[in-house]
């Protein structure tokens, strides 16, 4: 059980690190949304499932309820995070932000 939790946490860390670096490195606002939206949500899902596995260990009723609540957070973020990113893109397009083209002259 502990090994699976450790593996899940390492994967979650990789996802989060990728998301954070992606937010910095990408050239344009629209391309920066990909890591922010996907990797953060994915990292959150994996890390939260690791926490849920950890809290469920004593197997008494109270621990099971807490891990169910953690799974509830995962489901909630899974639904809301893409919609939030979608509203940001919507606002970006309405405000007249052009996507970045690769300049050949550079």
């Amino acid at each position, binding site marked *: 059980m502990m090994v699976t939790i450790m593996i899940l946490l390492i994967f979650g860390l990789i996802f989060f690190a990728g998301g*954070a670096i992606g937010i910095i490195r990408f050239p344009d*606002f629209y391309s920066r949304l990909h890591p*922010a939206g996907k990797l953060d949500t994915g990292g959150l899902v994996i890390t939260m499932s690791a926490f849920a596995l950890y809290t469920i260990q004593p197997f008494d009723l109270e621990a099971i309820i807490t891990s169910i*609540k953690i799974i509830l*957070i995962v489901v909630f973020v899974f639904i809301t995070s893409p919609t*939030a990113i979608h509203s940001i893109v919507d606002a970006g397009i309405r*405000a007249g932000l052009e996507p970045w083209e690769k300049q050949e002259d550079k």
Partner: protein
Amino acid sequence: MLLPTYRCLIGPTVFDRLVGVNAIGSKTIVMLILIGLIYKRVDMFVDIALAYAMLNFIAVLAASRYFQKQKGLYDKTGKRTPLI
């Protein structure tokens, strides 16, 4: 946690800052649960993290709804001069 804050400070346009805020929000949720594990009182911190997830979502929605009316982002002559 520091990298999205850097994006929040430097980001040329307002929307980069929104992306940074959203990233920080999702990372704080995980950190809240970690703090709960440290203090051995997870069920209290799970509720706080759930409330924070909702707040983060609504804040990003409201901010993006507010900023979409901003016309002065890029002047239409093609010059990339971010005004904000």
